[in-house]
């Protein structure tokens, strides 16, 4: 076929254009499945923690991330280590994820449990874009450090990164 020029795009199924598509919630793993995946053959015993106001402040100042909930969903892992379940906001909705910590407090594995978002790119939402209005090269966003050409890092992934930073501080302050 000749490739001389672009042609206006007409979809094969015209009826589909403009069709409203419901957001799809993706549940990847249950908590039990994630525990199996991160710590195979190990036992995880529920060991939830409620942070004190003091601990909350320390975690916030160490991680630079706001602590939205003082309730930490935690499991102690037989033979050392922690299994934590946390939530961050993606573009619109919560992302539930699990972090396995080794006995020394280092990250073993991160698994997304539940992610209710459509895939795509940051510039999907007018309200979200609005926050960048008026920003110039002279007033850079902190986000710039994280904007990677390798992928056009998504907001969701950035928030997970922040969440993990907060959980690592939580470990130091409250679980260790």
């Amino acid at each position, binding site marked *: 076929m000749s490739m001389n020029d672009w042609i206006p795009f007409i979809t094969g199924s015209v009826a589909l254009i403009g069709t409203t598509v419901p957001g799809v919630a993706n549940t*990847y*793993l249950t908590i039990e499945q994630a525990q199996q995946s991160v710590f195979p053959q190990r036992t995880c015993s529920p060991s939830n923690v409620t942070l004190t106001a003091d601990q909350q402040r320390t975690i916030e100042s160490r991680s630079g991330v706001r602590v939205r909930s003082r309730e930490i969903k935690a499991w102690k892992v037989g033979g050392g280590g922690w299994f934590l379940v946390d939530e961050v906001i993606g573009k619109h909705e919560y992302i539930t994820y699990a972090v396995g910590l080794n006995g020394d407090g280092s990250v073993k594995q991160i698994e*997304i449990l539940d992610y209710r978002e459509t895939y795509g790119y940051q510039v999907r939402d007018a309200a979200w874009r609005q926050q960048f209005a008026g920003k110039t090269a002279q007033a850079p966003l902190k986000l710039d450090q994280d904007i990677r050409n390798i992928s056009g890092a998504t907001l969701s*992934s950035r928030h997970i990164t922040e969440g993990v930073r907060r959980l690592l501080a939580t470990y130091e302050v409250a679980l260790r």
Partner: protein
Amino acid sequence: MSVSVSVSVRKERLTGVEKLQGSFETRTHTRTLCRARPLLGTIVEVVVDTESETLGHAAIDRAFETISVIQKRMSFHDPSSAVSRLNREADKHAVSVDDKTFRVLEIAQEFHEASEGVFDITIAPELEEAGFLPGKYALGSGRPAPVWPRRGVRSDVRYQTGAGRTLPVTADIELFPDRFVRFRRPDLRIDLGGIAKGFAVDEAVATLQAFGIESGLINAGGDLQVFGPRQFTVEIRDPSAPGKMVAALPIRNQAISTSAHYFADRISATALTGPFVDPRTRALAAPALSVTVIAPSAVFADALTKVVMINPIGCLPVLQRFVAAALMVDRKGAIFCTPNWHAKVDDAA
């Protein structure tokens, strides 16, 4: 108002899936496993059809590992990556790199040649200058924008690959046998961002296949590869009208990749809009708002979106050469496709 295209996957509901009952494993039934991890600066989703849950999860674990290794080696940001080592040392002496990094450099050279210089991994300084990569010229560093010398578009430097092929290389990067790499220009820095994500998806698909996984999907935030007999529906949405679909593509054994101008509205229209630099002029280029490419492999699709974005008119023979088709949304929101788009999509189904 801006329109950009995003890709989403609608997973077909599982058929014939039964829960394991008692101690009998239902080997005759295929089940679908979906997992996701934060990698490559996005959320990477892996979907596999498997008869054995244990094997399926092991395959997925290994696929994530594959991606993680590639991310570590090819990161522009990680000082211990192969790319960082090249950027520090390769202008002083030849540097030996791992086979995967070398392979990506080979592919990059192939695209550089095929696109007559449009695809270029040496535009890192311009991206840094524009604030898309960290570096001494990053946004807010207070340094004046440097003037970079224009380079030749094509080069006659050639090297012999292990397989006996001869590929042209840019004047600035030399690839030698035994995976040695040398930069011929001081201050040259490479960024594999335009290609590494697609490469990682391809490699992870190969990992799954090595485990005997026959069909599945890997989606790394817009770089997506579907493999095997199963058909997946990939939705292209119109983000300016949330939930509105531009097209639903039934895809089988194909890769699809979308590049968009992430910050089209962030800075004024005269300033930079996205991380696309035209290597021929070394200026930020932005003729299209969003480009989607369908191709036989994710690394092709990934690299080709950049070629189309920068050179929408001249890219058509390049697309043809790599058996690819493209869809483009222009600044006014009009949607165009290459003449082979529909045939390609039908082919894929």
